[in-house]
């Protein structure tokens, strides 16, 4: 199972994207789905840096990507603050451009892009985000 650790900087994002792209493409995932996984992982990393660690350079993020029978499984771990995603409201798009609060689609996109998303916080293991995308 390919695993890598990335420093919690936004400059890691293109490297993470390439890492996912290579493994998912070689595993046989089609281009559109590879893009969707890359985007979900990018959103997750950005949130961890910004919200769990509270900024860049506060900690590493571990990524593992595992092609399994039904699809590709992604596990992302960090040692930052934990949070409960169920408390986060969905973004609205039924509003005019002036009313639009221009933030907050990351979590929403992750759920839309991936077939399964699970978030767990554990005092010893830290935060673990597990995502799954079908072939």
């Amino acid at each position, binding site marked *: 199972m390919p695993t890598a650790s990335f420093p919690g900087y936004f400059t890691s994002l293109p490297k993470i*994207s390439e890492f996912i792209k290579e493994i998912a493409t070689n595993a046989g995932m089609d281009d559109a789905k590879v893009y969707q996984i890359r985007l979900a992982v990018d959103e997750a990393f950005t949130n961890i840096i910004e919200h769990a660690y509270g900024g860049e350079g506060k900690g590493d993020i571990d990524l593992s990507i595992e092609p399994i029978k039904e699809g590709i499984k992604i596990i992302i771990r960090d040692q930052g603050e934990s949070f409960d995603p169920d408390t986060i409201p969905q973004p609205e*798009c039924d509003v005019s*451009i002036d009313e639009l609060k221009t933030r907050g*689609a990351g979590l929403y996109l992750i759920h839309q892009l991936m077939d399964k998303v699970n978030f767990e916080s554990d005092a010893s293991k830290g935060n673990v985000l597990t995502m799954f995308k079908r072939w």
Partner: protein
Amino acid sequence: MDINTKQYKRCTVVNMSGRIDANTSPELDNAFKEVLENGKNNIVFDMSGVDFVASRGIWVILEAQKACKQANGELVITNVSDNILKSLDLAGVKHFVKIFPDIVSAVGSF
């Protein structure tokens, strides 16, 4: 990443290449703000060179649209790749921004 701006009679074309993510979106944000500060409020964002857009990029685009509209102008986008288009659709961008198939029709819409 590379941002270029070109002024036409009725609109400004901004094009960028590479990724628009948490790392690079502030530069795009600045480019849009500069156009608006120059008194121009019609923007064509040419995404022909863009190969990845995270939600940060989407917000930059929507913020720029907000500012254009407040100045009685408009931002439109063009040359969006299929993968990016799908994610923009998920985020509901088309409710707020016109998407043109090519830059001529985008520029020609002003």
